[in-house]
């Protein structure tokens, strides 16, 4: 009865035309796996054959990222080359959200120009419109940059298609091994051997400017740390101390390496090596093994692996305070080989998950751990510079191959492997 009275009052209080009532719906997650896009072949406005299929490279990049679902060319009903020629309703029928159109032309000076426009089918708006000049042999790089721009405009994250990957390839029978340090484009193409040796090569690490690699090589018979400039091939030995010289990691400003050294006492600890002066500073001092250091992006702390608690776990050493390192991982009995995401919020680690070594993401502040991969022996995670993906090494048919997992764990894919066994991938920083 009382409720009824209340209702009457409430009803009386209502205006004659009640304000439009609303339904409120919370959207808590995006379930769409990928973004449907049509990358239309560019019109070639020049003499002779098309010098490069820009659209094919763009389409492959987007598809490989796992975040885009390009429409196969065979399903395209029309091939417009300008935004104002895109019939939104046609593409909507094909369930495409975005369309890339453009033209490739030759400039008077002999160079080429890629002009492209990105159209949102939802709004009909032109989201991008750019012209990129390029030499004939840089048309593929220009194509990657088109893919980068699309990726960034649609996903809000800078694309990493123009970056590179370094890894170690191992060939030959056990009696005649060959080790090569290789750098490729992010799509696996354009493979270049940086350094080759019959002795093991390990732990490649990119300098922040992307111009050099630091790595461990045994080619002198003992492990030593080298820095090699990619353009010139110049190789500099930066640490050949007695015992272990391992796991170099560049400081964000590029002036220092964090390294794992055992020195004369055989106790592996983390040290900071200033490259210009060879000045060495001991960072950790523990009877256990402290190794695999990596810098936080802000340069203020270093994460490393230590078995000081009995089994490998991740610790963080603050560089300013000098206080005892803080343990980060508590989930699972084995967490090692940390790499910090570009935003500093997460670590990619190798974790022992139900008897298998897998890649996991660890919350850098709270320590929570999410397993991202499902291999048996996944190792050596490395973040893409945009933080969207993690490249790692895994086994496929008894061979070591490279794989990529999106940092949310949703998208996993193996990269087409060259012959032989591939290990220890390291994703470059942004290069332009």
């Amino acid at each position: 009865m009382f409720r009824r009275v209340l209702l009457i009052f409430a009803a009386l209080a209502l205006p004659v035309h009640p304000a439009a009532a609303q339904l409120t719906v919370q959207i808590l997650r995006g379930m769409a796996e990928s973004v449907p896009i049509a990358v239309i072949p560019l019109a070639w406005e020049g003499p002779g054959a098309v010098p490069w299929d820009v659209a094919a490279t763009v389409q492959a990049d987007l598809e490989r990222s796992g975040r885009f679902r390009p429409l196969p060319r065979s399903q395209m009903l029309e091939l417009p080359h300008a935004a104002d020629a895109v019939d939104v309703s046609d593409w909507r029928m094909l369930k495409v959200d975005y369309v890339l159109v453009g033209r490739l032309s030759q400039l008077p000076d002999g160079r080429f120009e890629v002009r492209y426009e990105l159209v949102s089918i939802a709004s009909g708006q032109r989201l991008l419109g750019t012209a990129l000049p390029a030499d004939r042999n840089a048309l593929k790089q220009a194509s990657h940059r088109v893919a980068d721009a699309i990726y960034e405009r649609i996903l809000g994250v800078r694309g990493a298609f123009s970056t590179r990957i370094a890894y170690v390839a191992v060939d030959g029978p056990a009696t005649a091994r060959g080790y090569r340090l290789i750098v490729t484009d992010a799509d696996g193409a354009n493979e270049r051997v940086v350094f080759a040796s019959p002795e093991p090569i390990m732990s490649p690490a990119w300098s922040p400017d992307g111009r050099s690699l630091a790595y461990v090589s045994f080619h002198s018979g003992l492990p030593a740390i080298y820095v090699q400039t990619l353009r010139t091939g110049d190789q500099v030995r930066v640490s050949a101390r007695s015992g272990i010289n391992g796991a170099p990691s560049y400081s964000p400003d590029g002036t220092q390496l964090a390294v794992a050294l055992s020195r004369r006492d055989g106790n592996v600890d983390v040290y900071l090596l200033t490259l210009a002066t060879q000045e060495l500073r001991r960072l950790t001092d523990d009877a256990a093994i402290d190794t695999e250091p990596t810098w936080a992006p802000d340069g203020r702390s270093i994460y490393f692996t230590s078995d000081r608690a009995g089994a490998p776990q991740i610790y963080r050493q603050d560089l300013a305070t000098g206080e005892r390192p803080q343990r980060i991982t508590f989930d699972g009995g084995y967490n090692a080989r940390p790499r910090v995401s570009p935003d500093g919020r997460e670590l990619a680690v190798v974790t022992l998950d139900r008897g298998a070594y897998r890649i996991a993401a660890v919350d850098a502040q709270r320590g929570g751990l999410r397993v991202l991969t499902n291999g048996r022996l996944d190792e050596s995670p490395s973040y893409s510079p945009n933080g969207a993906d993690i490249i790692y090494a895994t086994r496929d048919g008894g061979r070591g191959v490279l794989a990529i997992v999106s940092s949310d764990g949703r998208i996993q894919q193996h990269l087409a492997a060259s012959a032989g066994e591939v290990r220890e991938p390291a994703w470059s920083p942004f290069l332009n």
Partner: protein
Amino acid sequence: MSASTRPGIAPIGWSIALHAVIAGFLYLGLSLPRPEAPVMPLPIEAVVVDQAILQAASSQRREDDRRMAQERQREAAAVEARRAEAERLEQQEARRRNEEQERLAAEQKARADAKRKAEQEAAAKAKADADRKRSAQDARLRQQREADLRARLAVEEERTSAGFQSLKASYVQAIQAHVEQRWFEPPGTGPGLSCTVFVSQIPGGEVVGMRFGSCNGGAAVRQSIETAVRNASPLPAPPEPALFEREVRLIFTPKESRR
């Protein structure tokens, strides 16, 4: 006390006196002698005769005179009677005229009264009719308002009823799932994101408009939401038509970090 009664006695005394005087005048007025009708002089005829004759004549004359006097008396009485009769008739006539006038006046008055009464009655009737009509109209309006109110109450009550609420919840869930399946959540979004979008739909679920409310996401997030909403058209139909709302507020608030 006595001082106050004295002035009261004097007017009463005056009043009595005044009444007496008025009564006196009235009496006098009533008993004033009416003017007599004048006696008409009769003409005399004389003839000279001898003595004897005269004698005889004289006795004859006397006799005649007596007769004539009697005759005159008779005539006078007759005149008086005629006069009285005429007066009576005149008075009767006057009375009759008076009565006639009074009758006519009364009739006139009666007619006027009747007319006035008829007019009054007509006016009253008209007023009554108007009143009745107005009150009927009022009643109808009131009834309609009550009906509207009841309908609104019924809707409100239904809306607050448990069954309706659970239908509404399932409608909300249907829209949520429908939009979530079409939203590609850009990497890097997460619990910090909050984007409100007001979506206008028409019956049948077709999305006819959308606008962003508060949104802390960047261009790519907005783009992803816009695309999701467009692709979500038509929105699912409500399990109960009364649940349909033209405006749906979508709040994009990811619970988990999307890296």
